[in-house]
């Protein structure tokens, strides 16, 4: 399908042109194709063969080819520059291909809390039915045991994965401290679902699940094709063209591997190219009518870039902890999400309330924190064996010493939107088609650092209670992004300060919609993709109303 024999000429008549075949684009395409519309999806990356996944897994486990080789990222196509105070490793944060970044993702999927929508022009209630639909589409294994989660009336499509042995060690400590543990909704089959197998425990979910038990969006691309959608791979969209009035997009101009350039016309256009490439494409589509970039009358395109930041603490205990059997987590804690400053009281002690007088006096009040109990703390034996400098009995001794007693917690905190964090164009560097590459300006501010510090405090208290010998901390000074690209075409009712309206349509152009975390006004501290999927389904509905 991806060879040179593939027909990459545009469709003569298309109702909808979708740019990008990650979960957002795949869901939009599937929904609209199922309703009988002619849908064309243009995808920059290639169509990966499912049969090759075990080889990709091997690349992930074995050192030698580099982590980006698993999904063929990097090179001139994916060039970028990171100009901010903090370096942003963009190509570790995305995959280009049919299925998009979900080929690589971890697959934990939560609904945002009601409080997360405070600054949004829509409420949790508006998204609630779409959340349920998104959970059914992705196939989510979960349980109704999270007392802090927003209300839901339908059960999860699949039962949650049982807690791990490692969770049971945490449970004792958490009970003494009054910390609540609950299940994690996973886009991962705990039983056969939607013609995909149940999880078989390869333990390499991130970056590749060879069994297909972890959801990836190539699944909905196939379903969309079964409903008649056309998907053109290796067809990066270069720019969008509009009519004389500047009211409608007329065509998406895309390139092919054969060196040709085509125009795909359509009645409606949906951008689903992720939170970095969507603003880049709009900026690249500048015209006399839109000199600062298409749909950018507000000047907000590319601005307010946000990510979540990782906080973690780990070490060892004097018991076996049974890590690295599977590559996903089974327990987390949302207790400090809506109220990150709260204290707790357990059967024997508790987490002290945040007083503002921690390690830094006068630091800002922390924002939402999500805590995770990891099932993959410490090195996995096979990875240790392959990167060590020993063999034979010496190696085995080292492996036995290194594996067995690790334990760790992770977590996420969010950033508030800041105008100076942004995606711009680097006009001094071009990609393989001569287009300026994305230029990231990004830094971690003091409030985010305060949230990380608070998260570390709670994590340390729990690990101390477990009697762990703490050996590492990822916090304010050495944190890294969770690879959730939010905020760069934000939603709002006021066209002066936002890019899309609550119906996900751009204020400026009547037939241009955006399905992405780029429309998030704020990001909370939860992984975004279930919300992306819900918004994509909502956007598809509004597109249909106009067709």
């Amino acid at each position, binding site marked *: 399908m991806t060879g040179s024999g593939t027909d990459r000429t545009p469709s003569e008549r298309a109702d909808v042109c979708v740019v990008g075949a990650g979960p957002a684009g795949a869901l939009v395409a599937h929904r609209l194709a199922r309703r009988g519309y002619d849908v064309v999806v243009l995808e920059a990356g290639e169509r990966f063969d499912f049969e090759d996944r075990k080889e990709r897994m091997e690349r992930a486990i074995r050192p*030698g080819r580099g982590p980006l080789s698993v999904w063929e990222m990097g090179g001139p196509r994916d060039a970028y520059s990171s100009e901010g105070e903090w370096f942003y490793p963009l190509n570790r944060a995305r995959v280009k291909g049919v299925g998009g970044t979900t080929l690589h993702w971890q697959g934990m999927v939560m609904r945002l809390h009601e409080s997360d929508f405070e600054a949004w022009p829509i409420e949790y209630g508006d998204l609630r039915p779409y959340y349920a639909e998104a959970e059914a589409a992705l196939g989510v294994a979960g349980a109704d045991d999270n007392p802090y989660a927003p209300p839901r009336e339908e059960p999860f499509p699949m039962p949650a994965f049982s807690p*791990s042995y490692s969770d049971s060690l945490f449970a004792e400590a958490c009970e003494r401290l009054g910390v609540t543990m609950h299940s994690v909704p996973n886009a991962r089959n*705990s039983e056969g679902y939607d013609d995909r197998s149940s999880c078989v425990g390869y333990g390499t979910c991130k970056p590749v699940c060879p069994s297909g038990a972890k959801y990836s969006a190539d699944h909905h691309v196939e379903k969309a094709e079964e409903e008649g959608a056309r998907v053109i791979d290796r067809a990066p969209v270069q720019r969008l063209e509009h009519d004389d009035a500047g009211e409608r997009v007329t065509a998406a101009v895309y390139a092919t591997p054969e060196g040709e350039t085509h125009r795909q016309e359509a009645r409606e256009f949906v951008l689903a190219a992720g939170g970095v490439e969507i603003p880049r494409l709009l900026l690249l589509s500048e015209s006399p009518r839109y000199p600062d970039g298409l749909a950018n009358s507000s000047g907000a395109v590319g601005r307010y870039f946000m990510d979540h930041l990782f906080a973690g603490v780990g070490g060892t205990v004097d018991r076996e902890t049974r890590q690295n*059997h599977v590559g996903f987590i089974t327990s987390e804690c949302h207790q400090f999400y809506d109220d990150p400053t709260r204290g707790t009281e357990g059967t024997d002690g508790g987490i002290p309330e945040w007083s503002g007088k921690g390690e830094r006096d006068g630091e800002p009040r922390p924002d939402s924190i999500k805590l995770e109990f990891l099932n993959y703390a410490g090195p996995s034996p096979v990875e240790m064996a392959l990167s060590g400098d020993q063999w034979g009995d010496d190696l085995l001794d080292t*492996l036995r010493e290194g594996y067995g007693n690790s334990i760790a917690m992770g977590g996420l905190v969010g950033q508030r939107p800041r105008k100076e964090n942004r995606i711009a164009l680097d006009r001094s560097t071009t990609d393989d088609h001569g287009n300026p590459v994305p230029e990231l300006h990004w830094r971690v501010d003091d409030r985010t650092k305060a949230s990380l510090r608070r998260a570390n405090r709670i994590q340390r208290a729990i690990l101390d209670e477990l009697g762990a010998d703490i050996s590492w901390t990822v916090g304010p000074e050495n944190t890294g992004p969770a690879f959730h690209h939010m905020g760069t075409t934000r939603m709002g009712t006021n066209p002066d300060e936002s890019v899309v309206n609550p119906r996900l349509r751009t204020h400026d152009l009547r037939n241009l919609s955006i399905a992405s975390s780029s429309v998030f006004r704020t990001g909370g501290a939860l992984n975004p993709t279930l919300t992306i999927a819900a918004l994509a389904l909502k956007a598809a509905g509004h597109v249909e109303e106009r067709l």
Partner: protein
Amino acid sequence: MELTRRDALAALAASGVAVGTAAVLDDDLADAFDGDASDASGGPSDSAPEERMATLLAIADVVYPSRLSGVEEFVRTYALGRVEDRESYREGMVQALSTLDDYARTWHDAEFRELDPETRESVLDQMGADTADPDPEGGDSARVRYYLVNELLYALYSSPTGGKLVGIENPQGHPGGTGSYQRGPRR
């Protein structure tokens, strides 16, 4: 601990090889583990398939722990399955084997497989295969590390028996189900 043919077949299945092919079942060495290193490298050492297998087993002797039995059958089954239908991989492996023999001949005037165990280990050490960063396109030590040493270590430590040596019966790379992560240690 005993490595079995089943371990090898499981490791093969996990690496994407269609298990049960003729080559695996018949140990059809000539077909499955053939290759012509001398063509590509111009070197003199075009050893026969069975000799290549003997070299691989000699490396396994060094890099596998001593308390392991059943190594020969494991390596035979696994190695043959791995190179079958993967032309470029087989070539990389054959080339690395001949590189290793070049070193053995230069330093000790013999093929690697003919050396005594300590000398074998010293050859791998001295050429730097222990500290090299594995790289399929790298220099001699990097390729020997990637195609030979790490190939064998990957096969072992992603298999249940190799994992169990370390204390994990469902190691990464092995589809061992969703029961083991829930179970506590066996006392």
